[in-house]
């Protein structure tokens, strides 16, 4: 076992796939950042709101007012530098930090694909993605290599595989497979798509989409790894992700996944892609090849491999932390995020907060519009950690205004996957007396139903 493993670690492979991945990843991120800014979302999501929902432990990460634009600009420039492979190590570190900072500013905007990008960014800090077809290599030919350790490319494949397989496993539940939920809610509303619109009203189509989605996620990494099925698999990747782009508001994610899947291809494909890019920019590609060292790139420091190994192990385990919580995951969302649970549920809620003077019994209801944007209110009203954080914010706000013996209570209802809405948070619990932690939230009311499966 160990000899084969260390032999594997010493294997080298062409540097081209990782170079292609770096170029496309950088460009995709640049486009994403520009799109985000052009849509006016920096202002709408990070400057306009009065209050931001923080991740537990990251309360210190806050938007910087108008300077928030600066973070986006820095992140965009870093993306470009990553694509060019210019001062790569610094660029990818700046990219990872700025992008992650943006994501940590407000968890209202949490998306699995943003988390995916942070993960890839972190991983790429440790990979020799600038060893080939980069400005760094061009400027300093002693740092240009034709070959790199095989595990570096495989680590990206492994991460992609984890995303798909976890997403697939998460779909193995009774709502998804036997009720075709939430697709049964989402698909009929796309009635205005040409050709598809009428089809999306049919129940069998909802089931077909649910089942094929689950099967796709579970087998696609293997079809991509296995050479005879690779092109077929890539065609599936394109069809699947473009379809999700048409049906759901998920922005750039489908394109990022399509481009990422290229990493599974053979060296020849990547050389052709790089050759094509070279022709576009009038770069002499044969010179790029000839100036690179024939020897494989070698890590000078030996901590890289352990860090990548630990990172991937954490990625492997993190989605399973929900097993430590006893209640229905979709209801309590304890351990829901950072687990590739993508497009799994349709959840909506209503939360009305009451500020009580716990001594005198006087009370009044809060108008959420005074504190939250409509998007924040929507996200807050069905996620317990949001409700708790907002309750504390309200409590502090009214204490500062001079209210005494403040208690914060919530009357809330949540509807999950088409079930009729039902009470969500215990209405008699003073939320100021509860604090965020990784412990079970015993003030969430029971989910009076069962969703079987993983």
């Amino acid at each position, binding site marked *: 076992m160990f000899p084969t493993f260390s032999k594997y670690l010493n294997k080298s492979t062409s540097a081209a796939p990782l170079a292609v991945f770096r170029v496309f990843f950088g460009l995709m991120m640049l486009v994403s950042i520009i799109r985000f800014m052009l849509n006016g979302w920096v202002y709408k999501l990070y400057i306009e709101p009065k209050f931001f929902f923080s991740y537990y432990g990251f309360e210190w990460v806050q938007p910087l007012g108008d300077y928030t634009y600066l973070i986006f600009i820095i992140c965009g420039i870093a993306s470009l530098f990553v694509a060019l492979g210019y001062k790569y190590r610094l660029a990818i570190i700046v990219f990872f930090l700025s992008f992650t900072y943006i994501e940590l500013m407000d968890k209202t905007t949490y998306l699995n694909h943003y988390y995916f990008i942070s993960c890839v960014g972190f991983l790429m800090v440790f990979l020799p993605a600038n060893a080939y077809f980069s400005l760094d290599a061009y400027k300093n030919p002693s740092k240009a290599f034709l070959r790199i350790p095989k595990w570096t490319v495989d680590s990206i494949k492994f991460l992609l595989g984890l995303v798909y397989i976890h997403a697939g496993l998460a779909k193995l539940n009774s709502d998804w497979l036997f009720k075709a939920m939430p697709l049964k809610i989402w698909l*009929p509303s796309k009635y205005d798509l040409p050709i*598809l619109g009428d089809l999306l009203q049919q129940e069998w189509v909802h089931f077909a989409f649910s089942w094929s989605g689950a099967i796709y996620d579970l087998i696609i990494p293997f079809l991509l790894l296995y050479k005879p099925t690779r092109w077929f698999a890539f*065609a599936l990747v*394109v069809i699947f992700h473009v379809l999700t782009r048409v049906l759901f508001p998920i922005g750039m994610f489908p394109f990022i996944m399509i481009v990422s899947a290229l990493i599974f291809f053979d060296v020849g494909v990547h050389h052709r892609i790089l050759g094509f890019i070279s022709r576009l920019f009038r770069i002499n590609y044969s010179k790029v090849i000839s100036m690179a060292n024939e020897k494989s790139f070698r890590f000078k420091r030996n901590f890289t491999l352990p860090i990548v190994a630990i990172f991937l192990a954490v990625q492997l385990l993190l989605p399973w932390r929900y097993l430590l919580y006893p209640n229905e995951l979709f209801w309590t969302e304890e351990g829901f995020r950072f687990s590739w649970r993508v497009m799994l549920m349709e959840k909506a809620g209503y939360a009305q907060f009451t500020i009580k003077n716990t001594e005198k019994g006087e009370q009044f209801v809060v108008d959420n519009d005074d504190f939250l944007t409509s998007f924040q209110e929507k996200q807050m009203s069905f996620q317990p950690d949001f409700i708790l954080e907002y309750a504390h914010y309200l409590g502090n706000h009214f204490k500062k205004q001079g209210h005494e013996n403040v208690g914060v209570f919530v009357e809330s209802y949540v509807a999950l996957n088409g079930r009729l809405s039902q009470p969500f948070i215990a209405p008699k619990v003073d939320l100021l007396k509860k604090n965020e932690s990784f412990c079970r939230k015993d003030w969430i009311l029971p989910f009076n139903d069962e969703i079987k499966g993983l």
Partner: protein
Amino acid sequence: MISPFGWIFLNFKPSKMKYLKLSAIVFSLTLILASCSNSSDNPESADDNFDRGAMLANWADNIIIPAYTSFNAKAADLKTKTTEFSTNPTVEKLQELRNTWESAYVSFQHVSMFEIGKAEELRFRNRVNIYPTDTAQIEGFISTGEYNLDLPSTIDAQGFPALDYMINGLATNDNEIISFYTSHTNAEGYKNYVNTLASTISSLSAEVLTSWTAGYRDVFVSNTASSASGAVDKFTNAYIFYYEKSLRAGKIGIPAGVYSNGVLPEKVEAFYKEDISKKLLLESITATHNFFNGKKFDGNTNGPSFKTYLDYLNTIKNGENLSALIDGQFTVAHNKANELNPNFVEQIATDNTKMLQTFDELQRNVVLMKVDMVQALNISINYVDADGD
């Protein structure tokens, strides 16, 4: 934006060509599909899809436009009666004006929820029915004679609540009220202001109605897109917003002290008239209820509506009968409200729990509509990459 990759692949070996071609074709097709999906206007097929165009047409032709037409006539009447009163301020004319004002105010409850298109642009509801009215600002305007009711800062000095003050609230008895328009040193100022108030309501209403009849109707009915900018999504948001904020909170919640320490009876609707706040509430519950059921404005037949839309979706979903729950809850809330004193100021003073009970019954439909109905219809609230993933 990554379509160039599509043709990189065309350089590949023939064995791989078929997958390449397949993916390139699917890729481009779906991109085209995605980019033109909003502008498509292919006719809905009759059977296997709910016809949103027909629902929008029922809303526009049988409810919205007739309701505005009816209100517009009452608003014009209000303007006429105000002129008559100001040229000849007698107790009799005052009483006539009050009746017309009341009838227009009641009629307004049927259009207040339609804050879309021109009404949204004009902020129609804010221009016509913000209460409590700001009497100090009104008196200031009258004494200086300088005001521009188009300014957002003047919304609480105009509309029905301001007229309420001008015809019911200036003094405690009719003769004293009349004296403001006859013997007061600035009687002209009072006359001008009361006329400006009435003519502003009338011209705003005419502007909204004209916009519907002169083109907006077709824009509205044809905008069947399923996105945050589609007519169904936008209108549903506006409807629920009205029900939650203006009806439930404005008419009952705020005066009953739900949002404050202690009750705020001075914030009831039609505060100076005193005895019609219940009438206005019941009318608005009926109007929103009828709208939910798609009931014709001047008729008893029901057309395509939220109710039939929910029923259609439920044939796919087989869940709870949501439309029956909402329909039933409207009736429950209406019956509860019917137990109240016609004068909410008195009701709050004698037994505020009845107000709070009414609030609770209205609240149940906020949950059913804002959570369950919006989920069932898959209405988008905001345009950001968010839903689902």
